[in-house]
């Protein structure tokens, strides 16, 4: 038996001496491989007597599993050592910048239009659009602007050459001065009840600190049977609260004049200029926000809708203006300058929710 003890000791020592996995593998082959020492002794069992064979067999099996366990435990130590050594070498400077990713922005006008559209969509208004090159009929006449009236002149219209072969207000081509033109298209092409909002570019011949020759409006139109100014007020008050995200928002309606609405109103929201800082909400001041009114019966008539059966309301607001108020953008003209610093600063990430 001492033979086996000696072998065991010898083998265990070799296992312990193995310094890496490949050396350990060699030890396994030397000890337990086909031609290994333990295997070799197993092969001699056949020459032993039954008793002795049984005894020796058990002893050899025990030795085999002991050595095997030694090797396994040595292996796990060596693997851990190897891993530790690898981890020690494998190091990156995590303060380095990651690979650059390109990120663009969405223009504040787009964001504002999407926000406004979403609020009105919940109130049942679909988005309608229309052409920017228009004629006097759609821009003025159908909207009850009397010919040559100062109200027409106040629009500072850009004109294009007259349409050949046409006369009157359909011959006069122009860039629409307001999105109200689309009211006419919608009423001519759809049957009431109607609920639409119309975002889009409009054009006026004016260029200074607070005017650009192109800007954006959103028009709203509702035509139905039982609609009065109370609904108009309710709708717009709700809109302003949600758009400006101010719960306690004072609002004020006051008389105004638009040829295509009667009665007409302008809506102001409360604001404060205390300490030179402009803030929307309760305060000492008022800020004009939009124009609105009940659709003039003449407009309904001009568009083929019976004003005795239907009435409705319309409103319009300047997109740049409300974007400037909501997002604190100081200068109108910068909206169209394409300055990448401005676009990145005032723009919105593509995934930002509306």
């Amino acid at each position, binding site marked *: 038996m001492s033979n086996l003890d000696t072998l065991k000791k010898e083998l265990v020592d070799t296992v312990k001496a193995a310094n890496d996995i490949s050396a350990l593998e060699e030890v396994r082959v030397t000890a337990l491989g086909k031609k290994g020492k333990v295997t070799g002794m197993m092969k001699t069992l056949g020459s032993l007597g039954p008793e002795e064979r049984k005894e020796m067999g058990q002893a050899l099996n025990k030795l085999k599993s002991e050595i095997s366990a030694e090797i396994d435990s040595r292996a796990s130590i060596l693997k851990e050592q190897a891993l530790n050594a690898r981890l020690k070498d494998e190091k990156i400077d995590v303060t380095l910048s990651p690979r650059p990713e*390109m990120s*663009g922005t969405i*223009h504040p006008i787009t964001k504002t239009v999407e926000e406004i559209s979403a609020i009105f969509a919940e109130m049942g208004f679909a988005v309608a659009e229309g052409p920017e090159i228009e004629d006097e009929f759609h821009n003025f006449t159908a909207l009850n602007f009397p010919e040559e*009236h100062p109200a027409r002149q106040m629009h500072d219209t*850009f004109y294009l050459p007259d349409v050949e072969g046409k006369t009157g207000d359909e011959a006069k081509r122009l860039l629409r001065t307001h999105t109200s033109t689309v009211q006419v298209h919608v009423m001519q092409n759809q049957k009431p009840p109607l609920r639409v909002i119309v975002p889009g570019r409009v054009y006026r011949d004016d260029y200074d600190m607070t005017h650009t020759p192109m800007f954006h409006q959103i028009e709203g139109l509702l035509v139905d049977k039982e609609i009065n*100014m*109370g609904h108009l007020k309710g709708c717009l008050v709700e809109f302003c609260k949600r758009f400006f995200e101010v719960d306690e928002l004072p609002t004020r309606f006051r*008389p105004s004049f638009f040829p295509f609405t009667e009665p007409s109103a302008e809506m102001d929201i409360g604001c404060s200029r205390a300490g030179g800082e402009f803030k929307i909400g309760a305060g000492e001041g008022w800020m004009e926000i939009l124009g609105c009114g009940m659709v003039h019966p003449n407009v309904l008539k001009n568009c083929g809708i019976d004003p005795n059966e239907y009435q409705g309301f319309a409103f319009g607001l300047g997109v740049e203006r409300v974007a400037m108020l909501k997002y604190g953008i100081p200068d109108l003209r910068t909206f169209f300058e394409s300055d990448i610093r401005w676009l990145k600063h005032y723009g919105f990430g593509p*995934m930002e929710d509306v």
Partner: protein
Amino acid sequence: MKFSLSWLKEYLDTEASLEEISIKLTAIGLEIEDIEDRAKAMEGFVVGHVVAAEKHPDADKLQCLVVDTGTEKLNVVCGAPNAKKGMKGVFAPVGSYIPGLDVVLKKGNIRGKDSFGMMCSEKELLLSDSHEGVIELPEEAPIGVAAAKILGLDDPIIEINLTPNRGDCAGIYGVARDLAAAGLGTLKPLKEEVVKGIFENPVSISLSNKDACPHFIGRYIKGVKNEPSPQWLQDRLRSIGQNPISTLVDITNYFTIAFNRPLHVFDADKLSGNIDVRFARSGEKLAALDDQEYDLSDGMIAICDDSGVIGLGGIIGGTSTAVDENTKNVYLECAYFDPTTIAKTGQKLKIESDARYRFERGIDPAFSDKGAEMATAMILDLCGGTASENFVAGKAPDITHTISYKPEIFEKISGYVIEELRQKEILESLGFELSGWDIKTPSWRHDLDGTPDIVEELLRIDGYDNIPATPFLRAPDQALVVKDLLQQRVIDTRRLLATRGLSETITYSFMESDKSDLFGVNDNGYKESLTLVNPISADFAVMRPSLLPNLIDAVGRNIDRGYPDISLFEVGGVYKTPEHDGQLTVAAGLRSGNFEARHWSQEARAADVMDVKADVVAILKTCGLNTDSLQISTDAPHWYHPGRSGVIRLGKTVIAYFGEIHPSILSTLKRDENYLGFEVFLDHLPKSKKKSTTKPLLKPSLFQPLSRDFAFLVNIDVEAEKLARAIKGVDKNLITEVEIFDVYTGKGVDDGKKSVALAVTLQPVKKTMTDEEITTLSTKIIESVEKKTGGVLRG
């Protein structure tokens, strides 16, 4: 429209404060634009009497004053050389704000002497730049009263924003009438004045066009003196920013502002013969009072005498008959002109005058008689002389009409109730005449046509605040609103491009003429009809035929600011024709500089055509198109590089262009950088064919896909896509992907040839493929490529 508070109060008997008046004006639709209240800024500043003045013991240039403020006597240290005992000046007590110094006055101690306020100079009160000394007030100024009053600054100037329908409030009397109706006082009746003519009017008037000028009252006043007008009249006019000229002219201006009754005065000695009012004839000219000469034409109202045109009726007078300081005899004109005729003439000749402003909005035709009498009386009063009889040509038109109204309609429109009695009361206070509920409009209102106008009148006087805010929701039976396909595609495209690193911009829809030529504005002959008649500047002259030129300018400006790597996009209209359907919605992008920035992990890589092609493909994919087999050709329009650009079509319809911008265009635009652009025509994209939301069933293969690489030598002009198609065509079920992973020319490849390497992915469906089957397929692939492209497998 500007007026002073005291002028308003000449016609309105009211106890209301300035603040009450201004709130009410806005509430009734006469929106306050500005209030200049100089008295408010000088609150607390009083007339101070210097009762003692001694030299400061420790400062040569200072004096120690004792100022009587009416309530107490205070020590004041003063540096003004003109301060002396006995004078009266403007005293500002401790705590008051000195606008010229932008400080709030504190109790001071100057070299050992306490000072409890200051005596002010004009500069310190922002009255002028004069800082020579303190203001010296007249001796009789009562001690302790508000200094603003003594300085004549206690009359606030109110400016209202007059909407074009309210011509009646272009006169102060009209504003007073509206305020009185709104319960803010009582309208003072105008004096009934009739000046009896004491000689026959030597100048007759004939009206040749009674539609344009239906009523004309003329009056000859002889023996007048046209000196500077009295101080009170000059002050009135100055308070609203008008310069006094002479008594006669000032009287006409006074009537314009006060009563919305423009008048004209001719020097009667410069008139030849009688007056005829007719349409001008083309070729006639008028040397007008604004020192301009105008070419007249038919449709303009000419006031003529035997010498020709002497005035443009309702707009401006002529110099040939103008009154001056030597005028002895004057002819007064008080007429009514048709608003539309005046507006047309004013617009044509671009004359902005106080008369035009009022006549084109419509004055009160029924006031002409009275206005003429009042003006005559005022001329006699201020200039002396005697008046002729009136010469009245035509008669005042009646612009009133009767509206059949039903009081219950008020609630239907406004959403709340005003009692009938109150409705009646409001309407009568506004000058309506009621006979039952037949309502006759006042002669001064041109803006009232029907029931909604009556409702608005009631509302604005009762107050818009009374309209309830009725909760407003989606109609109960209405489906949720969804965007239409194009709207959704526009939104998706914008977000997609932003995630791809392009920033959205918005540029003007019009552009410079020469630049528009470069981008095909006249390719279909529409340039002229897309060119503005009245552009604001040459930069904004022609409706853009493409989004690219503005984007090139925009990117270029950013490069010039020091940002060389720029990618911008815009989604917006381009204008192919001026017709309603000529406007297309285009998504366009432009990249310049590096696509991949220099970084420790990688080399910089400049943007190239494939980057913008990828943008286009991504848009098409987002819009629901199958982009696996796009029909790409190389016939992009002339603003693209002919060899580095592509066109994508669906059938015959162009859906996108992409490529490098043509170098000669860039050199015309003076840009040195490389620009890669694309244009996608969103409204040309087909509707999605999907009819249902269900996706086809996924049938994943049980077998692994395998990949084989091939390299072919082909002629250099063979398009790579052709090879890929040749390979795919061999077995469309088995070959699921063909990816070009290398294109090579140079060493080892003959001139005129290129090597194209492709990875072919095979996806067995029924069983794994044997080597033999793979070999057979490979042979077919090689044969197909050779047949369709002339390519040979590289050995």
